[in-house]
Structure formats: structure tokens, C-alpha cells
């Protein structure tokens, strides 16, 4: 455990020295900070636009950070040959892999927390103003702030799953191929329900195709479950038990992916 903690801490500190990650973070915060300007794109629905732009930015820049950091964590160590130094110490491959991953997760957490805080500040300042000047005055906002916090929390868990995919992909492919693969899985995972609908037994398609679609649906991480913007827009209370199940599903996928990563990385020559 101590070895995992040390690798994770080193990864976390190293991540803040990577300039491109800082740039993504700065861009994310800048866009969130100026989301109220974008709000004027939708007259009469400014508040909704702030929420969409800000949550979209957290997910989008979070996704860039997760993929570009996740896919570089291990290949960089192999490329610089520092991995040999680490693995000759009493650090197992599993400890190294999980330490790297947890360090990445800590970085994602810090990034999402910063962007989330920026969003909440903009929301606190602008929401009352927009609510007063538009027909949204009649819009209920009883659960909105709570739902926004929940959406940010779920974004973090979504990025955790993505990060695990990026890390594992990088143990198989070069980092650039791993990044493309991770983006692909992320976008396809956003449409997982689509595969489920296609695999519907009542649909008139060949049984083999249906079975294949069913397998794809079961294997794909369901990224769309982390999106609760509908609940925010409708100001509907998001039950904690459902939140818990979504988080549990995210963590289960992360565990599965990391286990696959361990099995692959354990066999890989470095």
C-alpha cells in the first residue's frame, strides 16, 4: 500500500508539471467563467445555457485531461526508462499500475473540483439575475444547486472510468493509438443505450446481429448514465440511492478495466 501511495503521489505532482494539462484546466475554467456570455445564444433560456456550457466544459476538458494524461502515464515511464528503476525497487507491477492510476484519479479529482467550484461561483452570481429577467422566473429551482453538485460528482466518476480505459489502452498500444481508442470508447459509450435498443428482441434483424449488439451493450461502459442534466433542467430531485447505484456501476467498470490492465501489463515486456 505504501508503494502505491508513493507512486500515486509522485504521479499527482508530476501531472501538475505537465503544461498541456494545465492549459486544458485553464481553458475549462475560462469557458465556465464566460458561460454567462454564451447564455445569450438562447434568449429566454439563459440559465439552462449556463448549466449546459459549464457542465459540458467540465465533461469535455475533464475528458481531454483523463485521456491525454491516462495514455501518457505508463508509456512515458517506459520511454524514459524510469520504469526499470522503479520496478527494480520493491514495487510490483500491480502496485506501479494502480499507483499510477490513483495518482491520475487524484489529478482528475482536483481538476473537476476546481472547474466545479468555478461553475458554482458563476451560477451563484448569474442565476438570480437571469431568473429575474426571463420567463425562467417561473422556473422552479428548489433542487437545482444540489443537482449541479451531484452532476459534478458524477462527472468525476465518469472520468474515473475513462481514465482507467486510457491507462489500460496505453499498456497495449502506443499512447496516440490509446488516446484514439479511448475517445472512441467514450463516444460510443455515450450511445450505449442505442445498442440496447438495436438488440431489442422485437426488432426485425438477424439473431446473430442482435446477439452481437447485446454483447457490445454489456461490454461497453455506459457513459450516458452519468449525465443527469435532464434532472437539473426539470428541477427534479435526484435520489441519493440512484446516485449510489450509478457510482457503484462506475466503480465496478473501473475495477474490471483495471483488472484487465493488470493482466495485460503483468505479461508485457518493458
Amino acid at each position, binding site marked *: 500500500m505504501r508503494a502505491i501511495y508513493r507512486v500515486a503521489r509522485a504521479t499527482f505532482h508530476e501531472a501538475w508539471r505537465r503544461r498541456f494539462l494545465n492549459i486544458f484546466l485553464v481553458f475549462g475554467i475560462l469557458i465556465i467563467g464566460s458561460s454567462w456570455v*454564451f447564455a445569450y*445564444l*438562447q*434568449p*429566454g*433560456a439563459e440559465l*439552462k*445555457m449556463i448549466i*449546459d*456550457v459549464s*457542465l*459540458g466544459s467540465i*465533461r*469535455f476538458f475533464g*475528458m481531454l485531461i483523463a485521456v491525454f494524461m491516462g495514455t501518457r502515464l505508463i508509456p512515458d515511464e517506459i520511454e524514459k526508462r524510469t520504469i526499470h528503476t522503479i520496478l527494480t525497487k520493491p514495487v510490483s507491477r500491480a502496485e506501479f499500475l494502480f499507483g499510477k492510476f490513483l495518482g491520475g484519479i487524484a489529478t482528475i479529482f482536483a481538476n473537476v473540483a476546481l472547474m466545479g467550484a468555478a461553475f458554482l461561483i458563476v451560477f451563484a452570481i448569474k442565476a438570480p439575475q437571469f431568473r429575474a429577467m426571463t*420567463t425562467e422566473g*417561473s*422556473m*422552479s429551482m428548489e433542487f437545482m444547486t444540489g443537482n449541479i453538485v451531484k452532476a459534478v460528482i458524477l462527472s468525476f466518476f465518469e472520468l474515473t472510468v475513462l481514465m482507467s480505459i486510457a491507462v489500460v489502452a496505453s499498456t497495449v498500444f502506443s499512447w496516440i493509438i490509446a488516446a484514439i481508442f479511448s475517445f472512441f470508447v467514450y*463516444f460510443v459509450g*455515450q*450511445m450505449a*443505450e*442505442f445498442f*440496447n*435498443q438495436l438488440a431489442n428482441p422485437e426488432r426485425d434483424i438477424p439473431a446473430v446481429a442482435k446477439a452481437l449488439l447485446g454483447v457490445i451493450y*454489456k*461490454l461497453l461502459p*455506459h457513459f*450516458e*448514465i452519468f*449525465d*443527469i*442534466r*435532464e*434532472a437539473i*433542467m*426539470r428541477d*427534479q430531485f*435526484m*435520489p441519493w440511492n*440512484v446516485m449510489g*447505484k*450509478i457510482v*457503484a*456501476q462506475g466503480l*465496478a*467498470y473501473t*475495477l*474490471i478495466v483495471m*483488472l*484487465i490492465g*493488470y*493482466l495485460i501489463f*503483468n*505479461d508485457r515486456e518493458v
Partner: protein
Amino acid sequence: MNRKTKKITGWLVVIALIIAVQPLARRVSLDRLVLGINPPTPWTRILARSNQDPELAVTGVTGVIVGAILGGFREVAASMLWMKTDTLWDKGEGTHAQALWTMRLTTLLDPHWLEPWRITGWHLAYNMFVETDDPKEKAKFLQMGVDSLKEGVSWNPDRYDLYFELGWTYFDKVRDYEEAAKWMQAAIQFPHPEYIDRMIAHAFERLPDMPRALDWYDYCLKRNPTDGTAAGATITIRERYLPAWKLMEQGKYDEAIAAIDKWLLVEPNSTLGLHMKGLIYERAGNLEGAYEAWKLAGETSALNAHAQAKAVEIAHKLGKPVPEVAQSLFREKAKGGMGISRPEEEAAKKN
């Protein structure tokens, strides 16, 4: 345990975990469905929509918009599409298939944005309606406009806006006052402007249903005693039409007609007077008289589709050959009215 056995065990654990997580995934999927928080899945719905309207090809979606959707900026993508619709409009291509498609796509991407629903419904029921001379085509556009607004209502059931917009389309374009009153009564369940209460009374007045019109004017006056329109309308109804209405209710149809004719002598083209006359004749079982009264009301005002549709309805009963009226075709097809459902759901039900 040797290395190979460990590896096999590891992969078996992975498979077991994948299987074990499925009930949880199903549970989450069900919970989200029950809560109604699944995002509108544009791709599936766009595909479903394309199957319904194959002539509407996906031509309005640029790479930037696809990127915005995939990046999680659904509302931004909707705004971009809306701006694209605006550009097409400015180029005079507002009635082309591409503009219709970008409008529809905007509503699919951001169903909680009211303006695209409002404009799309109006565009279909008003602008597209006048683009053709064929009553069947006109009826189709009315249907599309009304369906679009009903779908908008189903996404935004706690705001007055689209209920009113739908009520107004029934009032002003379809001229189905019964339906108009129903939707406007739904609108006033939420914070709303005062004039909607009065619109309900106007709808009943034109139907005509004078007692209900008076009830609603009375309601308006209780809410705002300085409402001059409601006060004036109450006096007019009581003076001109209520006596005839009472006589009709008592079955004294000839006297009721005489009471209405008294006012029609003063104002021969009075819409309300002619509507009342048509109704009295209808209740009396004098379909010829009813047909003539409704026909006259329809001819007096080219926009009086209510009277025109009533004339067509009675002409059909009498076996008279009459030219089709779009609103009449629409009404025949769309009997039922208040059911809220999405076109895709209706298509699914049929399948």
C-alpha cells in the same frame, strides 16, 4: 499456482465481474427510465424520424455541430442549428426541407428550449400551410404543426407557454374553439399572462357556447374588475345572444331564430350572430338552414375556418358535394385532441 493458472483465473474473474455487474446496470437503466432523466437520445430519435420522413435527409448537420453534440454541449449544438435555421430563413429558404429539418433537429437536441417549438409549430401551421393550395397538404401541415406543439408540451409540461401556443393555433388557425379552450385552460394552470383567461371566454363565445363564455368573462372580471373587454363582452352577450340561447334551450327554435335575426338585421355579417343561427338550426334539426348559416359565415370571412368546416360537416350529412377545407380534413383526422404523445411513440405503438 503457476503463472498460467493465475492468468486464466484472472480472466475468469474479469468475465465473472462483467456478468455480475449486469443486474446493477439494468437497475440503473430502469431507475433512470422511471425518473425520466435519460437524455433525449438524438441519434436514435433522429433515425426514427428519418424513417418517418425519408425526404428529410440529414443535410443540416455540420461537423462542428456533431462535435458539439458528442462533446456534451447539446444545448450549444441546438443553438448553432437554430442560427443555421435563421441563416436559411434570411436567404429565403425558410420553407425548404433543410430548414424544416434543422428546426426539427433543434427541438430534438434541446427539447426544453421553448422558442424552437413555438417557431416550428407556427412555421408549419402558418407558413407551410400557405405554401400549397392542396387542402390535403394543408391539413398535413396543420397536423405537423399541432403534433410538434404537443410534443413540445410533453417535454415542458409545467410551463404555460406551449399549452397557450397550441391553444392559439387551434383558436386562430384550425378554428377549433373547443380544442382551443381545452389547451388554454391547461395553460392557465401555471403562472400566465392575464389575456389567456379572456381567450378562453372568446373561444367559447365563437363556438358558440354563451353560458360558458359568460362564466369565463365572469371569472376574468373577478380576477380583474377593471377588465373592460370582459365587461363589454358580457354586456353584448347578455343583450344580443343570451335571450336567443335561452329560447333554444327551451326548444323554442323559431323564436330563437327570430331573436337572432333581430340583431342580424342590424349587423348582417356578425360572426357570432351567424354562428348562433347555425347552431340553433342544427339543434332544431334543420340541416339546410344550418348549412346556409354556416356557409354564409364562412363566406363573410375568408379566415372563418370554423364556419367553413361546420358547413362542410353538415354538407356531408346532407350529401351535398362541397369543396374540401383543410381545417375540416384536419379535424376529421384528429378527433380526440388532448392526448399528449410523441410522434415516435405513436409510430412505435402502431408497430
